[in-house]
C-alpha cells in the first residue's frame, strides 16, 4: 500500500490551522539540548563504500557453529516459506494498516494469528500481539490488578530476570507491590497465597529450564481469589499441557520461538491470551470476524471502546499497537508447520536437550538438580558463567547463558538445545567444555 508524505503545503496549512509558527515550536517542551543533540557521525559514504564497510562489520559476526544459547530466545527451524510470505511488500510496513476498507489481508492474517494462539494456549481470546514477552507479562499483572482490584502480585523467581525487571518498572509507578517467590530445588514451591494478591506469575518452563507444577500453583492462586498468569514458550505447548488445561487465566510470553530468528535478541513479539471472563480487560488490538453489507465474510478491529483512542486516559492500557510483522512470521510458520510439524520441533528439542544432559552427566558434569526439564537445563560450572561462555565462544561453540547470584547456585549457566542441534554439535560442546576445564577430573565444585 502506498504512503504519501505531507507536502510542504500540507505542513504549512496544518501549522496555520492550529496557530503554531513552526514544527520545531511543537517540541518546545523538550530541553533544547535534547532536541538536536550533536551526534558525532563520520562523513557520509557513497553506496559502494558503505556496502563494503557494512560487509566488513558483518564479517565480525560468528553466527555459525554449534549453538546452545537459550534463556528466553532459541533457534528453531524456520521454513523458507515463512519469510517468503511474511515479507511480501504489502505486509512490510512500519504502520499498522487496520482500516478494513483497504487491509482485509492483514486483518485476516491477524485473525488467523489470534485463532492459532488461542488453540495453542487453550484460552479463549488472544489479542493481535504485543511488543515482547516482558511487556506482555507486565500487562498481565496490570490486568489482574484491575480485575481483582488488588494491589499486590506474587512472581516466581523462575520468571526470566529481564521480564521481572520490566514488571518492576511497570508496577513501581502504580504502587503495586511485587513479592518474589524463591525457588526450591530449581522450581517454584506451592505458596500460601494471601487474599490481597491479584495474581501469581509463573514461567513454564522456568528460567533455569525446570518444569513447574502449574496445576498445583494455579489451584493455590485460585483458592485466594487471585488470577494465574502462565508465562510460556509457545513452542513448548505442542507437547506440554496448555495453560487453559490447568485453569490459568492468562497466558503470556515471547513469540520468538514461532518462526522468528534470534537476531541478536530481537525484534520479536509478545502474545497475550485470556479466559473469556477477562475479555473486557484485555489490552491491545483485537480483530474480529463479521460480514460486509453484501453478507460476505470480512474482518475488522473490534471492541475498540477499551482502547486509548476512544477512552483516552481511562483505556485499559496505553498499548494500542503491536508487533504485526513478527506476529505474522509466527502465523505463517504455524500454518506451514502445522500441529505435527510443531510437535516434531518441540520433541526434537526435548530429545536433544536430554541427550546433551545425559552426555554431560556421563562426563562428570554437574547438571543441576533432578528437576524435570524441557529443552533447557542448568549446569554448575567452575568459573563464572560469563567466563565459560567466552571461553566456549573462542572455540566456536555458542553456549551458556549465565545464571545470576539470586538463584544461589554458585557459578552456573543455562544450556538449551533445539531440534537444530545435531549429535555432532553435542559432541563439540562436550569436547569444548573438556578443553576449557569444566568437565570431570577438572575439579568441578559442587556448591
Amino acid at each position, binding site marked *: 500500500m502506498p504512503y504519501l508524505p505531507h507536502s510542504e503545503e500540507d505542513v504549512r496549512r496544518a501549522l496555520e490551522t492550529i496557530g503554531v509558527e513552526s514544527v520545531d515550536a511543537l517540541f518546545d517542551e523538550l530541553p533544547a539540548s535534547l532536541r538536536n543533540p550533536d551526534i558525532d557521525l563520520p562523513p557520509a559514504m557513497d553506496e559502494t563504500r558503505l556496502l563494503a564497510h557494512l560487509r566488513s562489520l558483518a564479517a565480525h559476526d560468528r553466527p555459525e557453529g554449534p549453538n546452545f544459547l537459550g534463556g528466553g530466545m532459541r533457534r528453531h527451524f524456520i521454513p523458507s516459506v515463512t519469510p517468503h510470505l511474511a515479507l511480501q511488500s504489502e505486509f512490510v510496513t512500519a504502520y499498522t494498516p487496520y482500516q478494513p476498507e483497504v487491509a482485509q489481508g492483514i486483518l485476516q492474517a491477524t485473525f488467523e494469528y489470534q485463532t492459532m494462539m488461542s488453540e495453542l494456549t487453550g484460552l479463549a481470546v488472544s489479542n493481535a500481539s504485543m511488543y515482547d514477552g516482558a511487556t506482555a507479562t507486565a500487562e498481565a499483572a496490570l490486568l489482574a490488578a484491575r480485575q481483582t*482490584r488488588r494491589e499486590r502480585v506474587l512472581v516466581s523467581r523462575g520468571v526470566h530476570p529481564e521480564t521481572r525487571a520490566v514488571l518492576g518498572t511497570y508496577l513501581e509507578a502504580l504502587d503495586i507491590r511485587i513479592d518474589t517467590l524463591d525457588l526450591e530445588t530449581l522450581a517454584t514451591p506451592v505458596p500460601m497465597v494471601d487474599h490481597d494478591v491479584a495474581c501469581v506469575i509463573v514461567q513454564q518452563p522456568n528460567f533455569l529450564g525446570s518444569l513447574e507444577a502449574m496445576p498445583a500453583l494455579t489451584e493455590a492462586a485460585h483458592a485466594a481469589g487471585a488470577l494465574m498468569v502462565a508465562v510460556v514458550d509457545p513452542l513448548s505447548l505442542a507437547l506440554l499441557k496448555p495453560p487453559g488445561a490447568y485453569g490459568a487465566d492468562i497466558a503470556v510470553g515471547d513469540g520468538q520461538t514461532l518462526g522468528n530468528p534470534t537476531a541478536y535478541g530481537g525484534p520479536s513479539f509478545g502474545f497475550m491470551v485470556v479466559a473469556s471472563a477477562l475479555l*473486557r480487560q484485555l489490552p491491545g488490538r483485537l480483530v474480529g470476524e463479521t460480514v460486509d453489507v453484501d453478507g460476505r465474510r470480512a474482518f475488522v478491529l473490534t471492541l475498540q*471502546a*477499551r482502547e486509548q483512542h*476512544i*477512552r483516552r486516559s*481511562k483505556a485499559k492500557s496505553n498499548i494500542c499497537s503491536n508487533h504485526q510483522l513478527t506476529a505474522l512470521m509466527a502465523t505463517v510458520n504455524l500454518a506451514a508447520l502445522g500441529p505435527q510439524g510443531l510437535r516434531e520441533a518441540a520433541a526434537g528439542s526435548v530429545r536433544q536437550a536430554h541427550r546433551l544432559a545425559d552426555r554431560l552427566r556421563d562426563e562428570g558434569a554437574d547438571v543441576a538438580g533432578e528437576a524435570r526439564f524441557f529443552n533447557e537445563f542448568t549446569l554448575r560450572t567452575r568459573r563464572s558463567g560469563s567466563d565459560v561462555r567466552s571461553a566456549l565462544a573462542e572455540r566456536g561453540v555458542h553456549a551458556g547463558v549465565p545464571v545470576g547470584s539470586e538463584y544461589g547456585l554458585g557459578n552456573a549457566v543455562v544450556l538449551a538445545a533445539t531440534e537444530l542441534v545435531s549429535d555432532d554439535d553435542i559432541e563439540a560442546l562436550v569436547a569444548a567444555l573438556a578443553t576449557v576445564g569444566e568437565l570431570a577430573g577438572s575439579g568441578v565444585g559442587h556448591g
Partner: protein
Amino acid sequence: MQIPDNLRYTSSHEWVSAPVDGMVTVGITDYAQDQLGDVVYVELPAVGAAVASGDPVAVVESVKTASDIYAPVSGSVEAVNEALHDAPEAINDSPYEGGWLFKVRLSDEAEPGSLLDAGGYQQAVEKEG
C-alpha cells in the same frame, strides 16, 4: 422520553431514587440510554467502595461509545446490579427499573435534595437537545 417525578437527576444524566433507610438506587436516564444506543457492557463499582459525588464510578459501553457514569451522591456502594453483566440491555429496556446500576448508602441524607427534580432535568435535556 420518560422522566419519572419521584426521582432526582443530575445534568450528566444519572437518576437517584428517594432515600429509603439512608440508601438510594442509581441508574442512567431514559434520555441517556437513548443517546448511547444499544448497551453491550457495563463496568460497575466494587461493593463497599467509598464514592464522592462527581467521581467516575462506572462505565456504560454501547455499540457507539463508552461513557463514564459519575456518582451523583457521596457515600458507600452497598450493592451493584450483577444481572447487568449477563444482560446489559436491561439499561435500554428498563432504565428506571431492571437497568439500575448500584445502590449507595448516603453519607449525607439531605444530599439528594440538592439534585435536579424532574422539571429541572427536563429543562437541562431540552437545553442540550
